[in-house]
């Protein structure tokens, strides 16, 4: 069993799995039950001056019968008295000394920051997280994402906090910006010990088509909320990867957040440089129990790869490149395993209508499209592929025409039926940057080319 313990800028945790600052980390009772279930740490629901919340507060997207593919909320920071939260944090830390307890904070004035930092640290907590990300309600009061979207303000408040804080300070970033490096670099300049990202994305979850009011509905109106859940993971991975590879920010440890539901999702964040990962939506959907799979799955994966967590962390950052650094000579071609094919021909529809017209069905189905890259007429293989399950409904591929786009493999419902096979490349690597550097990037058919 791999050692999953981490030390993130001095915050120690038995594993990298933390509850994000959100409804699951609202009370001492919840956090203690989460620790009992196996969570390594928790970032407490943001403390500040208590607020009044609205009803309703959450919205979700269902896709293809799967619930909560995406989720949003218009709930604000903790609505419980500060003293109650602080007493519970102290109690949790006393009972679970080896778990990471981080207190999320959001206040306005420097005096408030000074006071709340002192009171938070008096609980014995392991660190602080500055909520510069909340994109609804709090930003209208000049806090949350209103700070995260202004690098100068973010830097200054971080500096105030570092002036007073004795424990490590994580700055939580909003994705509602043009370039994540701007707030990331500002946090570095302000003296942050680590970064947490992403906070939620500004969103409207949908529209109630009967009442014609956006969702989630509060009476006759709604407001933009924070989008999260499995659907946002690709956006979060991009932002985490961007900070993990940039020379100005890469020395700061990252707590990755955004749609983590299982060990695989968590491993992806860690591979792109996260030290810890924070989870909210999946817990709101399924409960604290999901951490069992996360611990077991990550540990088994590391063992199978013969890697320690430290060796694995950041191991995919080097593969995150600019487009111009990609090898233009690399080629893959789709291959259909006739024995696994069930004959649904989703790949035919997808390729013909949505990609490059190189997958066909039956012997007569071979009109070559006018834009063909490859001269000549596609010829059906003889004999036609015959499947164990699909019989003569197995499609065939015009391989010279296939651009290796992946679409057929993505839409195929059968795991492993369509695979992308690498075509040998004797020419060696050639990138757009190489072509530009050596003046070879002329592609015929441009604006000023003769017909």
């Amino acid at each position, binding site marked *: 069993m791999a050692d999953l313990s981490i030390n993130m800028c001095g915050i120690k945790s038995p594993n990298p799995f933390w509850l994000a600052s959100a409804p699951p980390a609202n009370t001492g009772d919840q956090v203690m039950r989460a620790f009992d279930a196996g969570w390594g740490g928790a970032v407490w629901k943001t403390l500040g001056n208590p607020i009044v919340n609205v009803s309703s507060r959450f919205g979700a997207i269902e896709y293809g019968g799967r619930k909560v593919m995406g989720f949003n909320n218009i709930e604000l920071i903790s609505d419980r008295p500060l003293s109650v939260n602080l007493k519970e944090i102290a109690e949790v830390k006393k009972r679970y000394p080896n778990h990471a307890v981080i207190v999320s904070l959001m206040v306005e004035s420097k005096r408030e920051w000074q006071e709340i930092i002192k009171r938070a640290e008096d609980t014995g907590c392991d660190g602080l997280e500055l909520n510069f990300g909340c994109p609804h309600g709090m930003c209208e009061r000049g806090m949350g994402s209103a700070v995260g979207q202004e690098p100068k303000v973010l830097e200054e408040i971080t500096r105030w906090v570092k002036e007073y804080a004795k424990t490590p300070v994580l700055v939580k970033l909003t994705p509602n910006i043009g370039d994540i490096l701007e707030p990331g670099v500002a946090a570095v300049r302000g003296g942050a010990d680590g970064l947490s990202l992403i906070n939620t994305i500004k969103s409207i979850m949908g529209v109630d088509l009967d009442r014609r009011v956006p969702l989630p509905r509060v009476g006759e109106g709604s407001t933009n909320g924070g989008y999260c859940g499995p659907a946002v993971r690709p956006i979060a991975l991009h932002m985490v990867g961007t900070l993990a590879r940039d020379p100005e920010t890469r020395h700061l440890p990252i707590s990755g957040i955004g749609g983590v539901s299982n060990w695989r999702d968590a491993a992806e964040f860690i591979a792109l440089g996260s030290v810890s990962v924070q989870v909210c939506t999946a817990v709101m959907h399924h409960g604290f129990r999901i951490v069992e799979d996360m611990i077991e799955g990550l540990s088994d994966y590391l063992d199978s790869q013969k890697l320690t967590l430290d060796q694995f962390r950041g191991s995919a950052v080097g593969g995150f490149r600019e487009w111009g650094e990609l090898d233009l000579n690399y080629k893959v071609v789709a291959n259909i395993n006739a024995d696994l094919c*069930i*004959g649904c021909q989703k790949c035919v529809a997808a390729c013909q209508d949505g990609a490059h017209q190189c997958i066909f069905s039956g012997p007569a189905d071979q009109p070559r499209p006018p834009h063909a890259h490859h001269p000549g007429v596609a010829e059906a293989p003889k004999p036609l592929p015959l499947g164990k399950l699909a019989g003569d409904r197995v499609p065939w591929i015009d391989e010279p025409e296939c651009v290796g786009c992946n679409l057929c493999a993505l839409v195929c419902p059968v795991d492993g039926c369509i695979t992308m096979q690498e075509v040998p490349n004797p020419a060696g690597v050639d990138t757009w940057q190489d072509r530009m550097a050596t003046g070879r990037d002329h592609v015929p058919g441009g604006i000023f080319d003769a017909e």
Partner: protein
Amino acid sequence: MDTPYSLPAERLEVRLPDAKPKYTSAEARAEAERCLYCHDAPCIEKCPTEINIPEFIHKIASGNTLGAARTILAQNILGYTCARVCPVEVLCVGACVYNEWHKTPIAIGRLQRYATESLLEHEALTGQAVLRPKTPTEGRRKVALVGAGPASLACAAYLALEGHEAVIYERGALPGGLNTTGVAPYKLHSEDSLREVAYVQSLGVTLKTGVEVGRDLSASSLLNDHDAVFLGMGLGADARLSIADEAGPGVWGATALIEKIKNDASFKLPAVKRATVVGGGNTAIDIARELAQLGVAEVVMVYRRGAEHMSGYKHEMDLARKEGIRLVGWRQPVAVLRDAAGGVSGLRLRDTQQGGEETLSTELVVLAIGQEKIKGLTDAFGGIALDQKGCVVADAKTRQTSNPKVYAGGDCINGGKEVVNAVADGRDAARAMIQRWFAA
């Protein structure tokens, strides 16, 4: 959709509940979401009316239920009853790619019922028609249809939707054909068939019941007064065995008995403990199951060959066996045995393989060995060829008979197939008529 046709509430069939009730919207969407939405889908190919099944299921999944019904009705105007009576296991559902993948195939019949029944409910609730007849641009034609079964209803409906006049003549008191008189109650009650008939009427079809062509109305007058005639008269009386003591009480034809169970409020099932059904087709299985479900303790099916030779579907026979029905194969009835009072006491059977005879004790015998052809009627129309079995010969594409003005469809051309085949016939005949009238 008011209909003048109604049935008394108390009938035997009402005791046999719907085996596959309408899905709730949540059930329908959950099932629809499972559909892969195949390209050039094999389920479409297996449907005799070629309904665009993946398309209507996709619409159910998006909540576009009326759109789903439109997709169905465009190809099969009797999509509601077909959803309930089709042997989907050997048609669309049997072709679902999930079968080969060892996953549960999509419940296409139940989804089709959901969409079409929702349309009927929507129209009843709002009074607004989803499908509306066109105004014909090149003149309105008039067609007479003989028999108000699925073939004629479909033909008439598609003619009416194109703006043409369609008048159906039905000799019986109730329209709907076997959908009203013959479908097993656990699949479809007669009211539901009449509900669909009323829907067809709402499209502009005229229905005249209690009018027998050849008796009340001459064939020549139909030919003279209409641009075309469609024959959809189905089949005649249940076939008999012609064996000793067959005539008399206690021996029933299957379709006659089923019609009593379904529609005759005064009909009481004879208080018997043992009943024997002769035949190996789907009608035999239907009546055997109906008798068992109505409380006959011992129901036996007698068939002249083995189970593997039965024309009845295996999935239906499996259900029959689960209800305790036994099959006695390789036996042919040679005589009905009667007691002193004239009641049935047994059936004398001959072993069709080994020879020799034995007696099966039974108090009721039901003959499900096919139906006679309706004779004479086709002669009256003149120039209509029949095949060796007495079926009307009709073109495979146009359903035109050897009399160019007369088209035919349903059981009278195929000798007894599914409702969905009759619908395909009627629809194709309507399309062919219109093509013939207006082709440049």
